[in-house]
């Protein structure tokens, strides 16, 4: 009981010094990375307000020598197709989110709370479909959508998306953790199955429903390939594909393109700002690490 180290005295000073150094280094690294991460945003905004004459001159400006909001004005006021796109995207995302929340919570409730034979097999099949990457299916799905006459319709975007297993997976996990006793107490109190779903399960699941909803919303908002394939009419476009066509149609000016990008990303940035914690926690729920 006597093997105290004799190096105690030297090491203590070092111990606290290196602690401080370590923290300084940490700040440098983390803020440095943040700066790197930020560059693209800054570049986007900077270009969007730089007049064409400076852009075509080339050369590099940290801050543009002259600033113009002509393009912002043009998109926001004179050519508001971007509003139409934003509205379309909002519509698609909202409906998708709504359907996912309702339909997925129903089946998750059914699987976790109601006893019927084969439900574990059904769950197994749904979970296995997790492995199927969305794009593998595009060709047959496309012929299906075509056969159903849904090309150029929002349902073509909404329905296949709502068939995805993510929501079922998350909600099943969550519903499983709602104490069974709550439901049993409710049954003793005379709740029917529907009432348990609407008055117990749903209110108790608001956190996960919000998180899932946000996530589905953002995913749906950001869909690119599929809407590109099934939508034909630029008045029906979503923001993400609209923005790309702006680029190939109006072609040139980087300031024009960057303004449209900034406009296209704005709505989700605001959503993210408002719901940062919820969104991040939903990411974590997906990974089962939250």
């Amino acid at each position, binding site marked *: 009981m006597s093997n105290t180290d004799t190096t105690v005295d030297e090491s203590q000073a070092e111990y606290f010094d290196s602690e401080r150094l370590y923290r300084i280094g940490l700040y440098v690294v983390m803020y440095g990375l943040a700066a790197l991460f930020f560059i693209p945003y800054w570049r986007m905004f900077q270009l969007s307000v730089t*007049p*064409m*004459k400076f*852009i*075509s*001159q*080339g050369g590099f400006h940290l801050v543009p020598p002259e600033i*113009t909001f*002509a*393009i912002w004005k*043009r998109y926001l006021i004179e050519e508001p197709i971007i509003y*139409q796109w934003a509205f*379309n995207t909002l*519509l698609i995302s909202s*409906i998708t989110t709504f359907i996912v929340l309702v339909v997925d919570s129903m089946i998750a409730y059914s699987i976790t709370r109601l006893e019927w034979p084969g439900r574990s097999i059904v769950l197994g099949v749904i979970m296995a479909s997790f492995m199927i990457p969305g794009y593998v299916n595009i060709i047959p799905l496309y012929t299906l959508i*075509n*056969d159903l*006459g*849904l*090309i*150029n*319709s*929002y*349902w073509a975007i909404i329905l296949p998306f709502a068939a995805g297993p993510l929501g079922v997976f998350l909600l099943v996990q969550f519903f499983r953790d709602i104490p069974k006793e709550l439901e049993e107490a409710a049954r003793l109190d005379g709740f029917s199955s529907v009432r348990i779903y609407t008055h117990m399960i749903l209110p108790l699941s608001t956190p996960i429903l919000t998180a899932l909803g946000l996530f589905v919303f953002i995913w749906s908002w950001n869909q690119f390939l599929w809407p*590109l*394939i099934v939508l*034909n*009419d*630029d*008045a*029906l476009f979503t923001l993400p*594909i609209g923005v*790309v*066509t702006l680029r*190939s*149609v*109006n*072609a*040139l*000016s*980087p*300031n*024009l393109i960057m303004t449209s990008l900034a406009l296209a990303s704005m709505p989700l940035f605001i959503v993210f700002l408002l719901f940062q914690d919820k969104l991040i926690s939903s990411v974590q729920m997906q990974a089962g690490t939250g």
Partner: protein
Amino acid sequence: SGLTGGGGSDSDNSGKSGDVNVDYWMYFGAQEKKEMTELVNEFNKKDNGIHINAQSVPFGSFLNKLFTAVNSGNAPHIASYYASYGRHLKPITDPIDDYLSSKSKSAYFDIARENTKIDGNTYALPIDVHGKGLYTNDKVLEKAGVDPDFSDWDSFSNAANTIKKKTDARPFSFINWKAGQAAYRAYIIALTQAGGNVLTGEPGDYKVAFDNEKGMQTAQLMNDITGKLGWDSQKFQSESARVEDFVSGKLGMFIAGTWSINNFENENGEIPSDLSFTFKKPFMFPGEGDNVAWAESNSLYFPTNSNHTEEEKKAAVEFAEFATQNNTLWASAGGHLPAAKSVATSKEVKNTKLWTEFDTISTMYEMVKDKQVRYQPRTGIHINSDKFWGPFIDMYLHNTSVKKGVKNSATSLQQALDRQ
């Protein structure tokens, strides 16, 4: 209605009840779209019982969407596409000779009219004839003190070398746009002047013809511009880099379309006042071949759809005639030479800056009149695809050797033709 499709529209949407409704898909953008929309609105204002419902479909997926729409029975009555794609579109479009007014049969430039016919049947009406020429930045030329003869390679290359020496601008770019299609069209111009062909043979039995010496030489020339000759850079920083360079005086000359003038506009929609340029016939390439330039027509096709009534088909053609024969706007702002002779030479067109000042439309008119333009081969395949011409961009930027590039391009093109 938004959810079930077909809802949105670029033109005034509300047709009167009882009107014949005609759907019209177009891929135009920017100025072109503006002018076309105006034409549609003008037509809709007429009290003729027809309502045109115009929708924009992005160019990149236009063909694909059109095929799908026909396939799923949702095709519009009218669709815009290139006139030389008639053979490719034939399986999904209908001929319109039965509906065509007699006036229309002689309204267009012959070359344009002929190009819309397949086996004697009319499949489309041409809106315009547009082609590629040589744009020169006059300030750069002045600075270098050159004024070459633009129909002779030696003279042209001397001038180019002088520009290279005397200014810090690059003299000449073969392409304006980093896209296979741009390379293809420029290549056709040079190849034709060299006496070569892209394809030979008859429809249904086309053979690739540029994988020979002439084709290879022309490709080599193209490759030299960014290589040995050092006239242009091997960098292509963005798709629009050449246009930006041209506008800012870093590029002296380049090959681009009549409509490319729209790309010179700044964020306020104006051509920069300090930019002075000219549009020339691009007949400076070496060789013993014909001095003709590549040309194309935006046209209106009539996709197959068993749901379309006779009345609608008639109305569709009526609109197409209107839109192709009353489109002075198409020249003034869209930058194209109208395909209808009377329109092309109308006062309104001749009074535009494009005719009087920038020379794009006037030059184009001359070339058409003088039969100095030629359409590309009309194949059954989507011949403009990057799949075939991507290698030319790679060659131009020295990512591929000329030999390999030409071979790749030729092989895949031949394969596609055979598969047809």
